[in-house]
């Protein structure tokens, strides 16, 4: 009986892995670190799967594990912000993006990486996972108002960081972008 449930859980877990890996790459800004985290997440999920009461919440449960592992990793090693990690992901993305715009990918990944984990997390849950505010509030265990304010601050800081990236790379000023805040 337990073996059968364990097998079902394994199958469900495997179906979640592509989306979990995608989320991890976007969250941590590096594909190698993301894969390490997903692999650790698999280990923890396999140890704790019997604690998951609602199978419908598997994706949310896995993201929570991954997020906790990432925060632990940051505290231990302060790995976030390693240039090679960001460049590696930007490089991967620039190869996969049909716009052939490696520079833009690089700037965007660096700008995302400059945000706090909480801001990146809510931006990705809305933008990448296509979740509504109520679902995000439930997943993160915070009020909807906090989701909204984190999202607003996150997007403002992302925009500001992108403008900074473009100035840093000697790019042309984006018309109107700076004066908006004045």
């Amino acid at each position, binding site marked *: 009986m337990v073996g059968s449930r364990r097998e079902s859980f394994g199958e469900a877990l495997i179906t979640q892995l592509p989306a979990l890996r995608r989320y991890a790459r976007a969250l941590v800004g590096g594909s190698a670190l993301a894969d390490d985290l*997903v692999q650790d997440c698999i280990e923890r999920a396999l140890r704790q799967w019997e604690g998951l009461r609602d199978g419908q919440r598997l994706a949310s449960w896995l993201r929570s594990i991954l997020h906790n592992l990432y925060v632990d990793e940051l505290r231990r090693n302060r790995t976030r912000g390693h240039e*090679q990690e960001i460049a590696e992901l930007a490089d991967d993305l*620039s190869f996969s993006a049909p716009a052939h715009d490696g520079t833009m990918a690089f700037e965007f990944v660096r700008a995302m990486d400059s945000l706090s984990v909480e801001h990146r997390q809510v931006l990705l849950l809305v933008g990448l996972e*296509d979740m*509504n*505010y109520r679902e995000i509030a439930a997943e993160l265990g915070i009020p909807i108002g906090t989701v909204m304010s984190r999202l607003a601050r996150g*997007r403002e800081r992302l925009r500001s960081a992108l403008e900074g990236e473009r100035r840093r790379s000697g790019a042309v000023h984006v018309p109107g972008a700076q004066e908006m805040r004045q």
Partner: protein
Amino acid sequence: MTTEIRDEDLHAYIDGELDDLGRSRVQSIVDADPVLRHQLSLYRADKARLVSLYGGGLNEPLPREWIQRIEGRGARRQWNARTTWTIAAAMAATVVLVLAGSMAYRNFAPATREDIVADALAARTQSPPPDTVVPIRSTRDAQVEAAVMTRVLATQVKAPDLTKLGFRLVGMDVYNTPARSFDLRYRDGKGRIFTLYLRRSSGATRFDLFEEKGLHVCVWQDEVMATVMAGPVSGAEMERLAGLVYTSLT
């Protein structure tokens, strides 16, 4: 930011989280404020960029050791030390990207409207009539037409599969003027028509998302291809459609 509208409400508007009353209120404020409208467009472009950059990769093969471990056949993992090769490759990538960054810049901000939007909206209403109308009845039809588009546009193109967002490809119109172009027509279960207009790019990269005549319109152009997407869908739906088109067009 204007005092008439909270930042949180503007972002809730972008995400389709407001009720009808709230949406109308924000829409009227945005309509009356070109600065705010521009800012809204920038935020939407950032959101779409996030989807387009990170949204792919779902079909990448998973590492075999993950599957073996889950199926109970693999050993517990050890933390991997990053290999010298990986770090060296990443450092090389950094150099390449920094050099590329110093040599090239592609503006991803909203641009002024060009004729391509008018051409795309005219194609949507088949006015003037297309030079060729191609009904799509099967995947095979779509593949044949993709080969034609690839040849004409001189870049690898395929008709995006939008079925996971509820839209099925039903036909394609071909125009020879003002430039050789294609208008792919999709229909969803509610009978809504979503069109994807394609032609060779005029060069400048641009992204724009706006409403016109009851349609949401998204313009997405890089150095190779120009696309205009239009449909009677919400802004949030258009962003998802645009992201899916962008990641599956080539």
